[in-house]
């Protein structure tokens, strides 16, 4: 089955990203396809490569990146939400004259249409939020 995931909350503040990650892993293990993971609201903060969590804690951003690489996941950060919150890729950096880019490996920034499209194409949409 084809599943789309939406994450509305940032890492560490709320359990949403942890739940979504464990759900995604379990779905992949069961042989399902995760057609897209869409990061919205503060969820866009899951895609910054500037976090340094304590050594004895889980690295939420890194494990999403790794899961994406291993399974060719499409991790999409909403551009409108990202611009508000300072999540910037190379293109956004140049367009908006910012001093850096901070999108972690395996993530890409794209429009809200990607969420709607995912909801149309997937068999299920599962939302993790506050």
């Amino acid at each position, binding site marked *: *089955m084809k*599943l789309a995931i939406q994450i*509305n909350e940032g890492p560490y503040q709320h*359990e*949403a990203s942890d*739940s979504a990650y*464990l*759900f995604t*892993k*379990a*779905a992949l*293990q*069961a042989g*399902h396809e995760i057609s897209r993971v869409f990061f919205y609201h503060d969820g866009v903060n899951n895609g910054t490569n500037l976090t340094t969590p304590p050594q004895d804690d889980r690295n939420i951003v890194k494990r999403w990146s790794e899961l994406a690489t291993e399974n060719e996941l499409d991790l999409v950060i909403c551009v409108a939400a990202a611009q508000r919150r300072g999540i910037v890729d190379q293109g956004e950096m140049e367009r908006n004259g910012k001093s850096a880019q901070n999108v972690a490996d395996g993530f890409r920034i794209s429009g809200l249409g990607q969420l709607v499209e995912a909801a149309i194409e997937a*068999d*299920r*949409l*599962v*939302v*993790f*939020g*506050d």
Partner: protein
Amino acid sequence: MSTLHTVNKSPFEKNSMSSCLSHSVADSAILMIEDGVYGAIKNTSIAGDIDSAVKEKSIYVLGPDLKARGLNEDQLIDGISVVDYAGFVELVCANDKVQNWL
């Protein structure tokens, strides 16, 4: 048509649980996750509502979230089933759609 409802809020903090209970039709599946798992415990002020719901809906609680909070299966309201993440995935697939009461 069938719906899986998820609730991730403590019923003592937000109205997500009561809203879920009153907006889910008979034979729906309800899964308590994150702080929603507090709704699955016996002898609380909302246990009566859950008790009635168990009679016409399938109610589940996410085991890893339960355990993380120092709770165990013995404390659950009768009729509530514990699932793991694989079970969560199965519930999503077994129902036509998901309503997440955030």
